[in-house]
């Protein structure tokens, strides 16, 4: 059964239909890439699925349960987490604290228990710290645990967001342009990381402009253009799909590319 399934999702802002009948599904252990030219609606689709926007139509299922309109913190509890294209890092906190925030739902906490520092608080902290440390190592940020996030470079923060999202122990992980601003070496490492996350049995949904990354790690690709799905299939099919090439390069560009 698919982990995440979107069916006929639409959303309009004023008179503009940003998404028009978009559907996709992703299985555990699979990497699904959503690509398309700028303004195609990729991030809007992410925002709808992750609960930031309420869709005007359509149906979204997580593990078979309808989730459209649920707030993000409920979705986190149901096993969906994401990263952001325009980073949403907790800039004044240390890297380890950023990841620890991701453990919020894994810790049995109470406001009064925290105020009075019951002994259980320290025990939970130890478990969480261990897990957060593992995740920091996994994304390659070891040794910087107590650095303030706001002082770290862009590429590091992208990986920090992945570690933070993983700390919620998601079944579905949505990555919004994880390779933006990364150099080729970092991008290769990132590809291996994303693949390994999927190999853990999580479903990964990826929005990305770096086509080499997309083609190398995706199992399937969905192509959006102006709010509609214009193609879907395996990387090899998408590469040679005339409609896709046209959407990216325009008709004249596509003719030129065909001649070249």
């Amino acid at each position, binding site marked *: 059964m698919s982990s995440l399934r979107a069916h006929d999702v639409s959303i309009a802002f004023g008179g503009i239909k940003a998404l028009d009948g978009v559907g996709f599904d992703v299985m555990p252990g699979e990497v699904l890439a959503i690509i398309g030219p700028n303004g195609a609606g990729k991030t809007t689709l992410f925002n709808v699925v*992750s609960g*930031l926007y309420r869709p005007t139509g359509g149906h979204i299922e997580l593990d078979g349960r309808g989730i459209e309109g649920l*707030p*993000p*913190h409920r979705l*986190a*509890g149901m096993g969906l*987490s*994401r990263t*952001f294209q325009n980073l*949403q*890092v*907790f*800039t*004044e*906190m240390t890297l380890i*604290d950023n990841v*620890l*925030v*991701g*453990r*919020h*739902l894994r*810790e049995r*906490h109470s*406001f009064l228990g*925290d*105020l*009075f*520092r019951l002994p259980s*608080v*320290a025990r*939970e*902290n130890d478990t969480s*710290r261990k897990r957060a440390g593992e995740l920091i190592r996994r994304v390659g940020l070891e040794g910087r645990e107590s650095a303030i996030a706001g002082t770290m470079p862009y590429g590091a923060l992208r990986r920090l967001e992945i570690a*933070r*999202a993983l*700390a*919620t122990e998601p079944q579905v992980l949505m990555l919004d342009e994880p390779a933006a601003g990364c150099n080729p070496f970092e991008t290769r490492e990132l590809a291996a990381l994303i693949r390994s996350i999927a190999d853990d049995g999580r479903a990964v949904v990826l929005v990305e402009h770096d086509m080499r990354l997309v083609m190398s790690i995706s199992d399937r690709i969905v192509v959006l253009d102006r709010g509609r799905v214009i193609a879907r299939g395996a990387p090899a099919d998408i590469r040679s799909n005339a409609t896709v090439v046209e959407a990216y390069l325009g008709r004249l560009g596509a003719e030129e590319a065909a001649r070249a």
Partner: protein
Amino acid sequence: MPHRLSDRHLSVLALAGVVIALGWILPNAYFLRIATLVWIFALATLGLTVLIGQAGQVSLGQAGFLGVGAYAAAILPTRYGLPPLATPFVGAFVSGALAFLVGRPILRLKGHYLAIATLGLGFLISLVLTNEVGWTGGPDGMQVPRPVVFGVSLSQPSTWYWISAASLLIGAWLVLNLDGTTTGRAFRALRDSEVGASVMGIDVSRMKLRAFVLAAVYASVAGSLLGLSNGFVTPDQSSFLQSVELVTMSVLGGAHSVVGAILGSAMLVLLPQVLTVMQDYETLVLGAIVVVVMIFLPSGLVPALVDLTKRLTR
């Protein structure tokens, strides 16, 4: 992390040391009274340390809760025969419940809008306290009965010094406890990015509400102590200016620092006493000092001092 634990306990112990030393050193009732005011306002400001400094939400109506606490100390014993020493608890409950009810809708607002909404709440409370003459004595305020314990009336300045100091220590201990817990991290996370926090599973509106209720309870207890130690209350204690003063105390000392809350309160209580020699120019000079501190030390006194010692010891 064991060293954080000891940090936390050291801070409380150091604070206790200062409080006890001052209690011995201060020569007369006048100084004890002033110090009592510092501890009481520091307690109210500590609530803002959590609300503004940690959770990143503004309240310009905090004196409203100070007023609720103060009038609880005045009204409940006079009209309902409640023992005066129980009033801080009842007042705190009323303030907490009020903050809970009002907080749900207004904490949906952000930034300036939240500031205006809390300002309105403060005004409302102040209006009620001023105009409900039958209950509150109106603009003239009302007497607060002295608590009597084992036949002894608690009216000595030194008694109130120790009671307010102990309250501050407990209040500071609780706020310091939050640091490094699930709740403490959630507060700071929603200050830095609400969207990021909600995706991590944090119920943002619920967390804001908790910080708001906590701050209201702190202000309320401070208000009750103010009423009990002064022996009278006036609606001025719930005024807009008082709210602004509380925020100034918090920001001046360093909004997310416990020591900052105390230092900020000390400055705003002590400076007017010192500046009385300037007579007409008192407020002017006080304002100028605050402006200069905020221009040159925008993150507040304590963070600036911490930075300085770090640089010197490096």
